[in-house]
Structure formats: C-alpha cells, structure tokens
C-alpha cells in the first residue's frame, strides 16, 4: 500500500463511525449496550489541528481509539491519507500506523521504566527498520533536541529520573520519530502543572509549524483546546453536536450544550481582573446505556421542545464551516457570549 501526503483529499475522513460496548445494564441485566460513539463524521485537512471537547464518558477516547483502529470500531469509514483503514489487514494497518501516533495522559505509564531515554526514543526507529545504528543514534539526538531535552544530560537517564513534563517530552519525541502526519493527543497535558503544561503546549505549537504536523487534540478543558485548535468538535454522549472554527465556536456557540459548557468555566481576565462566575446547567448527565430519545441533550436543555424528543437532530451547516446538530440552534442568542468574552 502506498500512502502519500500530497494526495489532494483530506488527511483524515471519518464517516458514520459507530462503537458500542456490551455491558451489564442497571440491576445487572445482561445485553445492555454503551453507545460510546454513535454515527460520528468529521474531516481533517493536512496541517490542521482539530480539538475534541466533551464531558467525561462522552466518547472522546473511544473516538480516538476508533481512528487508530485499536480496537477497530463496529462500523463506519476511517479514511486516512486516502486509504480506508477499516478494510486493511494487520500488516497493512501496522504500516499505516507509522503515520499516525498517539500521546496519552500518563507520561510515566506510557514509558518502559527500565529503559534509558535514548533507548525509548530509538525503539520506534528500530521497529520500522531504520537499519544503521549510527543513523538511529543521530536521529535520537536530533529528536531529543527538537523536544527541548539535551541528549547529553537526559539521554542516559530513566523515566523515574525525569519530571512529568520531561517524560511527556520523551513520549512526544517517540511519537514524532517516524515523521507521522497525524498525532492523536488524548488528554496529553492533563496531568501537568500549568507552567510545565504551557511549555509542552508551546512545544506542540512549534512542532506543528516546523514539521507541518496535524493534531487530533482531545481534552475536557475547553480553554486548553481553544489554545491549540484550528477547529473544535464538541462531543456529547457519543455524538458530535457541534464542529466549527475555534474562534467562532467559542464566540458564537450554536449548540445549547456548547453554551452550557462555556457557562460552566470559572475564570478571570488578568487584564481587567474581571471574574467570570459560572452558571452551570442543572441536573445530571443521562446514561450512555439508555440515552434519551431524539436529541440526547434534551433532558438538560433549556430550549428543548417536543420535536427534540421525537427526532434526532442531524449535523447541518447553518454557517460556512460551522456545523451543529440541534433543532433550535442558538444563532440569535449569540450576542451574550460575544459580550462576555470581550
């Protein structure tokens, strides 16, 4: 199989992906299903960062794993660099995966504690057959430099001799070792303190511009996702409810759920010192085992009407490049948010 990055189509094209898990329902009833990802579709262009936000259990990680086919989703199309990964056999999939890498939340857990930093970064090069040891060593030094770790200082250490932020840099060096086109970051900076987190976020930005990387950037932190994304997708109970350009989506959310998320963030504007007191939605999120009929947000939605219980809203595009799945989107009520953000 030949994969080219210059192909005209999108980098990643995800169509109607469904992933479900068999679980025991309430009271231990067998045969219940978690609707973790339900008919999700989106596209990514090369060099673009798509942020994915949503509450815990909304299916972000399941979506990420579906994209990298680990495990393969129940149905749908995941077309990466023009090839549908859903149809590939094991060997072809392994080959395709070299172009898509994953960075996880736990920086220590993803690194073998017995290996030295140089060995850890060298591993993917070995795995994908960079034969010459000299070449590998040079590449490891280059990669460590790139992520801001002096190879002569850190190369000989083991993971426990590094801080969380430094370990995450090692994980990033491994991820970029084979020049991937796409990096999937699942809560990749969530465990880091703000100052270290800022260093790693800036590193992601630098690698994006220097290497032309694309990120699928998953986080429950809306402000963090805005920081790094060109476009943002909002997940709710397994469905995409809104996708749009980052700036616009936060300034003018169309889905009542996006708006509720934004209204829940405590914060302050350091220029004016002005404080934002959250006003969260009432009630508990519904169960993914037995999601509400129609729109899955309707039980908590201030705008819900009868139609919302009967018909599941399709993703449509009321503004160019800005999609929403809601029968009564917030187009007119948008000024509130604009005011709040200025």
């Amino acid at each position: 199989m030949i994969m080219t990055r210059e192909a005209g189509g999108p980098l990643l094209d995800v169509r109607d992906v469904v992933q479900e898990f068999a679980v025991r329902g309430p009271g231990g009833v067998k045969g219940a299903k978690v609707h973790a990802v339900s008919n999700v579709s989106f596209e990514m262009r090369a060099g673009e960062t798509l942020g994915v936000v949503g509450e815990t259990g909304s299916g972000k990680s399941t979506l990420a794993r579906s994209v990298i086919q680990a495990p393969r989703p129940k149905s749908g199309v995941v077309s990466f660099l023009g090839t549908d990964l859903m149809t590939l056999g094991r060997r072809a999939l392994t080959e395709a995966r070299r172009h898509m890498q994953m960075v996880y939340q736990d920086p220590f857990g993803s690194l073998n504690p017995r290996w030295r930093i140089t060995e850890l970064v060298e591993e993917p090069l070995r795995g994908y057959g960079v034969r010459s040891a000299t070449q590998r060593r040079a590449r490891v030094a280059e990669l460590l430099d790139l992520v801001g770790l002096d190879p002569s200082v850190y190369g000989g250490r083991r993971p426990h001799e590094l801080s969380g932020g430094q370990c995450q840099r090692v994980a990033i060096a491994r991820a970029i070792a084979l020049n991937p086109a796409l990096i999937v970051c699942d809560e990749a900076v969530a465990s880091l303190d703000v100052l270290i987190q800022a260093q790693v976020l800036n590193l992601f930005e630098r690698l994006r511009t220097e290497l032309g990387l694309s990120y699928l950037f998953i986080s429950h932190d809306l402000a963090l996702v805005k920081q790094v994304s060109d476009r943002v997708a909002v997940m709710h109970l397994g469905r995409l409810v809104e996708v749009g350009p980052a700036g616009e989506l936060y300034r003018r959310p169309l889905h009542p759920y996006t708006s509720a998320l934004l209204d829940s963030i405590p914060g302050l504007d350091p220029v004016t010192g002005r404080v934002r007191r959250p006003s969260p939605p009432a009630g508990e999120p519904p169960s993914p085992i037995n999601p509400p009929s129609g729109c899955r947000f309707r039980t908590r939605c201030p705008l819900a009407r009868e139609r919302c219980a009967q018909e599941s809203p399709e993703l449509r595009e009321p503004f160019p490049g800005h999609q929403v799945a809601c029968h009564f989107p917030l187009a007119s009520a948008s000024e509130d948010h604009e005011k709040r953000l200025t």
Partner: protein
Amino acid sequence: MSGERADTLAPPGSGRDAGRALLEVRDLRVRFSRGGRRVHAVNGLSYRLNAGEILAIIGESGSGKSVSARTLMGLLPPSAQVSGSARFEGTELLGMPEREMRGWRGAEIAMVFQDPARSLNPTMRIGAQITEAIRAHSDMSRKQAAARAVELLKLVHLPAAERRFYEYPHQLSGGMRQRVVIAIALAGEPRLLIADEATTALDVTTQAQIMELLLELQQRLGMAIILISHDLGLAASYAKNVVVMYAGRAVEYASAEELFAHVRMPYTQALLGAIPLLEREPHALLPVIPGQPPDPAALPAGCPFRPRCAAATDACLEPPPFEEHEPGHWWACWHPAKDPAEDPARDPGEPGGAHARPVKDGVQG
C-alpha cells in the same frame, strides 16, 4: 533563615477591617525525614481566616497545600516534624493529643478530598455512612440520625435523596458521590470546611454545580471554607482572599480582586500568564518560564523562585520577607512587578514584567 521575621508578626488577613479570626496560622513548618533526606514540605506558612469566609490556597503540585491542610486536622504520618502555630478560635491545634483532636475533627473542621471514591466505603449504603457520621458527633438515636441524614442529602441537592439513601456509592455518578462526601463532612456541623481539590476530578459542569453548592452552604450555615486548588480561575471566582504558595511558603496574599488586578510576585504572574484562557485566540503562544519547582529536599538559598525568575538579581540570594507592602496585599519578593495601574505603558514582554498579561487578542464584541 532571615525571612522568618515578618512571618511571626500578625499573619496576612489581620489588619484594620479584619473580622473575627476563626483560624490563625503562623510560621507553620512541616518536615519529613525520608531515607536520610529531609523534605521541607511547608516552610513558614502564615495566614488568617475569618469566620464564614472563603480562602483559596493555590499553587503547583508539591507546593505544600495538602500537607499544610492535613496538619490542621492532625492527619500527618508520625514521620512529620511540625512547628509553628495554628489557632482555631484561640485554641492551639498543633501538638494537640490525638484523643482531643478526634473531638475536633469533623465537629469543628472537616475535610473533603479530590477522590470521592476513596472517601466512601464501597460496601456500605450511603445512608448508613452518613447516619454513622452523624452519630459520631452527637447522641442522636439511630432513627433521628437517619432523618437528619436524609435532610443533609437534600441540603446537598442529591436528586431523589430518599431513594439514594439505600444505594451504594458505585450506583452514583462522580458528582453525586462528591455531594454525599460533602453531606458526610457536614454531619458534625463544622465551622470550617477544607476542600482539597474537591472538584478537580469532576467535569466542568459538575464542578460548577458543586462549587455553587459549597457557596450556598457557606452562606446558609455561615461556614468558613479553605479552597485548595491549582486552578486560579476557580479561586478568583469563589474566594474572598487568596494565598499563593510556592515551595512550601506563601509568596503572595490579597483579596481575589486585588490579587488578580495587581499581581506583584513574579511567580503569581507566571502562573497567570501560563493558563490557557478563553479570551485568547487559537495558536497564541503562552509566555513560559523555564525549569521546574525546586526539590523540597534541596531548596535553593534565598528566594525559592530565584532559579526560574526573570527578575532575579544577587539580592534574591537572601530570602525575601513575606510582608504587607500595601494595605491588604502581602508578597515575598525583592523585585515585585510594578502596579500596572501606575505604569500603563509598560511592555508586556519585558522580563520579570507583566508575564501575567495575556497576548492581546482580537476578540471584540
């Protein structure tokens, strides 16, 4: 250490319009000995909290927030060496015998932790857990206590409280579990609730709901709250006063409005600058500072922030005293940032300068 001088005087929070002190912490120090290494977890922390007020303690991981809070509850392991003073309505808590401390824990001061799962007994119905907590602090009959437990579950807005009474923790969502933990903490009608990262593990919507609940309880019951968090936004939104900790000491203290409008200490500035904000445009680079917090077993001489501070000079090899430099505003720094109100023309990119200012964005209404 010469920085102790000021710390032994009146702690921040005292002063002209100070209310009734509920808790006064002075020069608190906690040291652990671990395999011959001395870990200086808390290094001369002072603050004061008035009855019914919310105080936020913010700082990065390892800055000593939890250890200083556990000290107040007598919950440190025997390897901890504690000095200083912590008076609760005049009564010294440090060195109090464990038997006496047990009478205080829960009844006067209660604590809520980050992980509700670990605070609850998975094998016991939640109603029974609250009832037990109530009976530990009062001589109510089982029946009276059960009625009170349902009352408490309603107070924390647990949906369908009567039914949930008979459920086990795993049948509740994370947010509901944290409500139950708060109900248990309220069982002894404490006057101080310490919430140690109590909402950190929750979703933003659930976090906001729990914070609203804490605020409501504070107002209805007149309970004081110490809000321990690494989230500056949370502190700004809910606390009256804020203590910023770095390497086991307080480095800045002021009311929330004053602190965030006029940050002085370079560390606080760096923290403020580094948080991703909704107000910034995508791909804006964050102002970063190099390095990591110091190892509490090998603290640098002088100001603990010196190795990372852009404003540092040789003067910073002496520990800067933590003093009230302006009415109600305390900081420990030899070269504090100028008050932006006095010097509006300053370049935000200047070293040691306004790290705290976000990159100016183009979001206009």
